[in-house]
């Protein structure tokens, strides 16, 4: 890198010039935030606080999305999910055989989590829904559950189960395998982590007083 380029990168808080290998699509949440700031009227532009993410009501100037890295998990192992999102907004996923699905969200006790499904008795059902087509995203209000996550030791996580609706599983098995059904919903299970950080160098508390 030329001296100028490395100094410019440094001023932007980057130690090296990134070299993406397989760029992923821009997550819609970031694109929306970016566009919203870009579309601010010129008179309001300087009012936008570069050191606060209004969308999440937190201080921060860097929003980073870690794309789903769970594919390498061994098939059949439970996959940790942070967000259930229909991969393509406004498109409708139906299972190839037209079966419906049931979705249940549990809060396991700490012991149950170690064994997961093996301790069904010691988990509390939080949500139950059935669907044949998944429209947009499924949103759950977890504020009640999250309240007691204040200390990490009390956060046993949540267990999400998606199963074939009622007796249709047996028919599906006969028709050629439960696995086929599950692959049809696989395409929209996604795990992504969005992290907001505040870079102290670029968000200096003591600002040069402006006139």
């Amino acid at each position, binding site marked *: 890198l030329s001296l100028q*380029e490395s100094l*410019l990168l440094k001023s*932007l*808080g980057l130690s*090296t*010039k*990134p*070299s*993406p*290998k*397989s*760029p*992923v699509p*821009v*997550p819609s949440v*970031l*694109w929306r*935030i*970016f566009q919203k*700031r*870009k579309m601010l009227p*010129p008179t309001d*532009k*300087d009012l*936008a*606080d*570069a*050191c606060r993410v209004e969308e999440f009501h937190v201080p921060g*100037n*860097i*929003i*980073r*999305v*870690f*794309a789903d890295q769970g594919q390498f998990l061994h098939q059949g192992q439970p996959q940790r999910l942070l967000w259930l999102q229909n991969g393509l907004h406004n498109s409708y996923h139906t299972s190839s055989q037209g079966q419906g699905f049931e979705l249940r969200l549990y809060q396991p006790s700490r012991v149950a989590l170690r064994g997961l499904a093996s301790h069904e008795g010691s988990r509390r059902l939080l949500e139950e829904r059935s669907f044949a087509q998944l429209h947009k995203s499924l949103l759950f209000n977890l504020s009640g559950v999250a309240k007691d996550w204040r200390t990490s030791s009390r956060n046993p996580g949540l267990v999400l189960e998606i199963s074939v609706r009622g007796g249709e599983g047996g028919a599906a098995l006969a028709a050629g395998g439960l696995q086929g059904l599950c692959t049809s919903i696989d395409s929209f299970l996604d795990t992504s982590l969005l992290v907001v950080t505040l870079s102290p160098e*670029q*968000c200096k508390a003591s600002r040069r007083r*402006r*006139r």
Partner: protein
Amino acid sequence: RRSSLCKPRRLYISFSDVGWENWIIAPQGYLANYCLGECPFPLTAELNSTNHAILQTMVHSLDPEGTPQPCCVPVRLSPISILYYDNNDNVVLRHYEDMVVEEGGC
């Protein structure tokens, strides 16, 4: 003569010019601008001057060799946001303060 007064001048920064187009997703570039121009005595209101600048122009008018004119500097700046890939192919949105000169002053 008016155009020589202190005010923002157009400066467009193109990220592809510095070879960053493969990791910066958006924008491709942006108008950063810069300040340039005179701060002559008497300073007019549009020059956003500080009291000190008013004083300095007065002294400059009396002793041009000894005391220079006040500086022409940015007085209102706005942030920009940049979307880019980091080294692990994650998408990052980063806001940078004071990246666009909206207004200049003495």
